[in-house]
């Protein structure tokens, strides 16, 4: 991939382009930023941009046993590694977009955040080498600062380079890449550790983690190359100019309707029963079902693997059909079911984990777009920022709690705890169904009804939200959960193009 790029890197000799020219010499060749081949290169770089951070996010889950043994720590201390990752994002997801737009610019932002991930992973590995858990926690904190904001930058790049239905595809690919990063990590770190153990038994964990940092180096290189290409493209006028967004207004929080708060609670209740569970899942499958470490890693990563193909399908389905709350209810009930099956039966976990993976994708596609239905466009950024913020807060707190529960009361209690969290999400979903029906906010309308109402509204009032705003789509949620971008946003983007 980099060979293809190499001629582009010495872009200094590029002729200055006259204003108004659509392309310079070698029109349509790979050197032309508007050509398909060039854009494919950019797309590839964009996809690999997040690979490192996703690879690193779940390293603790992949090396669960090894970290616990080598560092002599209990589950509570282990789960702090996840908690520390989430803490910076309780604040940062409000400002990630702002930082990229106003302060750093997408190129510098991207390189900076990639560097954060790399430095964080190096500190993490160093912590393991010198056997200090606090240093490892600090590493995770730094990865957290970089990781989530990097996803925002990644989305910004996508919006700048691709439009319309292309954008849909690009988000889909970025998400798949993220999932591949997680999956590769889950299935590769174990063997890497064993391999390192064969020649470096004294500092196996440290060396393995340093090796894992190479994925971050790779992503950083992608960020730098992408930055250079982007700069050149901007100079040549071959890509959209970066638009600055409305800054997030925290005061808008007090105007959030009850439905939005219920959506927040569903989000927190649901996601805290997924990510911390996957973080602790490996040993569960080994101990309860007698799986080998490799089998455990595979079944533990199935949620991520499934979400890659399921997200586009469900996104399309929910977009066409509507009935979002019903889908959310279905997904929550299915997830509750899979946790209950894991807690109380010995039914093969492949079944329950696949069920969880499918419902996880369904929930993402149905839940996140609902925010856009009930919040004004100008508040959408705030709403999503807030949603991610409390999701991260939830993840940070629940990760700690989950570790403590596992240490003291075992996996049955932990599964019950997660079931209770999903139970809270279930109650909130039922309440949302009720409130939505009573207030007629239309969250559970079919797409047909929704379109009809939108048409009627269009007749009565002509003010539509700013079609070119990337506020709503540059949020972390698209890359994390793989939701499809609501159809109405695309319609507008196409019009503006």
């Amino acid at each position, binding site marked *: 991939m980099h060979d293809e790029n190499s001629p582009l890197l010495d872009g200094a000799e590029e002729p200055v382009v006259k204003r108004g020219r659509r392309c310079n010499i070698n029109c349509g060749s790979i050197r032309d930023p508007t050509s398909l081949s060039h854009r494919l290169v950019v797309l590839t770089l964009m996809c690999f941009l997040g690979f490192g951070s996703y690879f690193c996010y779940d390293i603790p889950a992949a090396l669960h046993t090894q970290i616990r043994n080598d560092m002599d720590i209990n589950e509570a201390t282990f789960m702090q590694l996840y908690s520390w990752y989430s803490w910076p994002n309780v604040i940062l997801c409000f400002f990630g977009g702002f930082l990229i737009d106003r302060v750093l610019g997408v190129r510098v932002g991207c390189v900076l955040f990639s560097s954060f991930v790399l430095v964080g992973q190096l500190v993490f590995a160093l912590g393991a080498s010198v056997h200090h858990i606090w240093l490892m926690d600090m590493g995770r904190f730094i990865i957290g600062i970089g990781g989530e904001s990097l996803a925002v930058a990644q989305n910004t790049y996508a919006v700048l380079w691709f439009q319309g239905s292309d954008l849909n595809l690009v988000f889909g690919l970025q998400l798949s890449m993220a999932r591949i990063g997680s999956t590769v990590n889950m299935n590769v770190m174990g063997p890497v550790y064993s391999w390192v153990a064969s020649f470096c038994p004294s500092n196996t964990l440290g060396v393995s983690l340093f090796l894992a940092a190479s994925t971050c180096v790779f992503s950083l290189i992608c960020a730098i190359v992408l930055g250079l290409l982007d700069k050149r493209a901007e100079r040549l006028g071959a890509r959209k100019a970066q638009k600055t967004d409305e800054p997030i207004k925290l005061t808008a929080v007090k105007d959030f309707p009850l439905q939005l708060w219920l959506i927040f609670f569903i989000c927190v209740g649901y996601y805290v029963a997924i990510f911390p569970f996957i973080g602790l899942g490996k040993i569960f499958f080994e101990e309860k079902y007698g799986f080998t470490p490799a089998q455990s890693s595979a079944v533990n990563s199935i949620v991520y693997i499934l979400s890659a193909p399921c997200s586009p399908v469900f996104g399309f389905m929910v977009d066409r059909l509507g009935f979002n709350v019903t889908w959310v209810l279905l997904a929550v009930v299915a997830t509750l079911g899979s946790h209950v099956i894991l807690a109380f*039966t*010995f039914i093969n976990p492949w079944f329950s984990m696949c069920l969880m993976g499918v419902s996880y994708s369904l929930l993402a596609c149905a839940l996140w777009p609902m925010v856009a239905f009930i919040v004004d466009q100008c508040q959408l950024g705030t709403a999503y920022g807030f949603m991610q913020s409390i999701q991260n807060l939830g993840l940070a707190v629940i990760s700690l709690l989950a570790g403590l529960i596992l240490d003291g009361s075992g*996996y049955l209690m932990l599964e*019950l705890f997660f079931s209770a969290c999903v139970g809270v999400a279930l*109650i909130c979903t039922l309440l949302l169904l009720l409130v939505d029906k009573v207030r007629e906010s239309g969250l559970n309308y079919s797409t047909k009804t929704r379109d009809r109402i939108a048409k009627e509204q269009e007749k009565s009032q002509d003010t539509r939200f700013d079609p070119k705003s990337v506020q709503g789509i540059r949020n972390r949620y698209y890359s994390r959960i793989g939701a499809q971008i609501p159809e109405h946003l695309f319609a507008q983007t196409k019009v503006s193009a």
Partner: protein
Amino acid sequence: MKPVFVFLTLALTLTTANRKISIGFNPGCAGLSGCNGPNPASKLLYIKSEGDCDSIHYVWTFNQKSIPTLLILESSNNASVVSIDWQSFLHIFNSSIHGSIRLKCGKQFCEDSVLSSSVYVLKSIIQYNDTKNNADITDKGNLYVSSYDLSNLNWNISVSQEVNSFLVEGSPYNQTGTFSKDGKLIMKFTTKDKSGRGPLFPHLPYNDQSSMWEIILTNLTTAFVGSRFALDFLVVNPENVSFSGQKTSLSKTVKKITKWSIDDEYSPSVFTSQQILWVNISSERPSSYWLWRTVCYTNVTPSRAFSSDVQTTNLVLINKTTVTGLESNHLLLAIFGKSVIDKLPFKRFSISFGKPDDGFYRATEYLSWTSLVGVGEPPADSLSLMVVCIIFAGVGCPVLVILFGAVYLVVRRCRKHRMQRVALLSNYEPIG
């Protein structure tokens, strides 16, 4: 209200002590040469657990140059006592040792009141080099197996009458091999007078017909980099042989089963337990049991961070000739006699400790493993009250929300209907 009350009274009756427990060290042996001095040749512990209509007798021997042996008898007569004819018991080369331990009810022998009996022999400590790091003692690739016979240990016993337990520390007469640097095998045996759960991990549930048996291996000398340890046991079902040495019909057997449970609340991430059961062949009902969770701990304070695995090999029927030391065991000779020991259906197995990549025994030089021995059915492991409450709340709350929502919607619709009817009648258009 009533079920709760019943539950509470049930819980109270379960936790109050209803058995009388007494522990005796060499009972009735005062003055004889084998029992004298600070370190007597005979070290016999007799624990009696007396209930309302039965009695359980534990006889432990830690005699010099003899392997530790435990006999458990359950008698339907609560006045029964194990009586020891010390003069005969102390002389193993004299044939009169056979029959020197009998069960007496008053002045009569009453072996016919025996409901169940079981014999445990702690033969040796096995050390093997786990070259493949798979913690599998049965792996043929793990060479260099060495066995340390426990008759080489000198046992130091301290009894705590108040807590119905005794502690015994085995250390070698001369420090060689496995025990060359202050190594010790420590056993703690606590007889329970009521139901409950162990205070520490793995929080084994016990009842008033059982005893907690903890074994600790500390500071053992590792001969290899990958040294792991295992304990070699023999068990026998003496009910196939009467106390007078006559063989009865083969109606009882000893077997090993592994139980999987969804419940790891009291021993986090341990889902299996293993049981050695003395069962009636026809009814499959256990008369005695020995059980443990498949977990051991590598630290003085057990926690999940310091937990390791326990594996048990299959029970193998052996004849006496392949095992040394049985014919010089006071307790076995006293119960069965020399001629019968040779034909006894001993079953041998070993319990090994450790799991792959845990740094082997030398990482901590400490292992503690807890098990439970008892008579009758093993205590059942039930879901805790907390779990049940959470399940009820988890099912109840969403149902309540659904009910509330449904009622609310119905009421609302009715009211709307009425308002509309009123509006129609009065020709008045309501707002909203």
